[in-house]
């Protein structure tokens, strides 16, 4: 028996699988592989043409941005609720609230990237706009999600 022979291996453990070997069930458009190198070259050239500002922006690690947005949400949330619900239920509100915000900020910044990543050039001409738009988006959604944990920890419906 040839060492590392797949057919022998399958014959012992899964004979039906061994019989199915050979067929490729997927298909590709005609000429796809002939054109693929050219497509890759075009996409690569388009990536390189992006202005230095945008390239530098995308160099910022996503987690670092998520951390910054989490911090901003925590600060904003603190001022928002410090005069109301937290006074009524300090321990529970702080625990759920900060934990939730940390997760939410990471998700929302990731969601923002996913939503806009392919269309950055369409949506934003100035890299600075991206920062402002992202922060505005996070704050809007942050406000939305703030309501639920606040209602829960404050014992409201």
């Amino acid at each position, binding site marked *: 028996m040839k060492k590392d022979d797949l057919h022998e291996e399958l014959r012992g453990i899964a004979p039906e699988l061994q019989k199915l070997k050979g*067929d490729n*069930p*997927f298909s590709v458009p005609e000429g796809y*592989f002939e054109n693929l190198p050219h497509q*890759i070259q075009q996409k*690569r050239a388009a990536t390189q043409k992006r202005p230095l500002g945008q390239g530098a922006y995308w160099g910022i690690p996503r987690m670092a941005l998520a951390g910054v947005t989490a911090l901003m949400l925590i600060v904003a949330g603190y001022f928002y609720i410090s005069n109301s619900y937290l006074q009524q239920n300090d321990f529970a509100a702080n625990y759920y609230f900060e934990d939730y915000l940390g997760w939410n900020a990471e998700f929302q910044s990731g969601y923002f990237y996913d939503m806009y990543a392919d269309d950055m050039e369409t949506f934003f001409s100035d890299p600075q706009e991206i920062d402002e738009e992202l922060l505005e988006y996070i704050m809007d959604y942050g406000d939305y999600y703030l309501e639920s944990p606040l209602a829960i920890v404050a014992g409201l419906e």
Partner: protein
Amino acid sequence: MGMKEYSDEQLLEMFQHSDNPNYAYNLIVRKYQERIYWHVRRLVIDHEDANDLVQEVFIKAWKAMGNFRGDSGLFTWFYRIATNEALSFLEKKKRRFFIPWHDVEHALGEKITSENGFTKNEIQKKLQLAILSLPQKQRVVFNLRYFEEMKYEEMSRILDTSQGALKASFHHASKKIEEYLKNN
């Protein structure tokens, strides 16, 4: 007229030290595009998704190849990038819509049964649905071994997992799929 076949070391040398890295890069793309494409396609099922991911793989490789030392070999390196891109894509799909894996699996299964870009052979469809039922990393192991007949030694370098663990994973996956085919 056939193109001359260069080894990975020659291609890397050409890319890193010649005046025309584009030429070497094109040769590298042509050498690996089909293998990388099929590896990704088997994971993400949809041709358009696979197309986007494959292009990302090669663009990332372009950016990093200048500093690539070649310790692991181009083959291993490309497969590693492609596997990570495909799994990240599937993970992102799950996270974006807050859906658990089995719903992503169901959505991919619908692409298989819709016959668009897929064979009409019912047994092959059943096989693909069975593979979809595996955990993601086990799918990778199964695909590499079953469809590409990759040696465990090479797979171990790509996935950074011991050969023993990979063999066990493949055996379990094969048995599960065999059972699925018998019961469906």
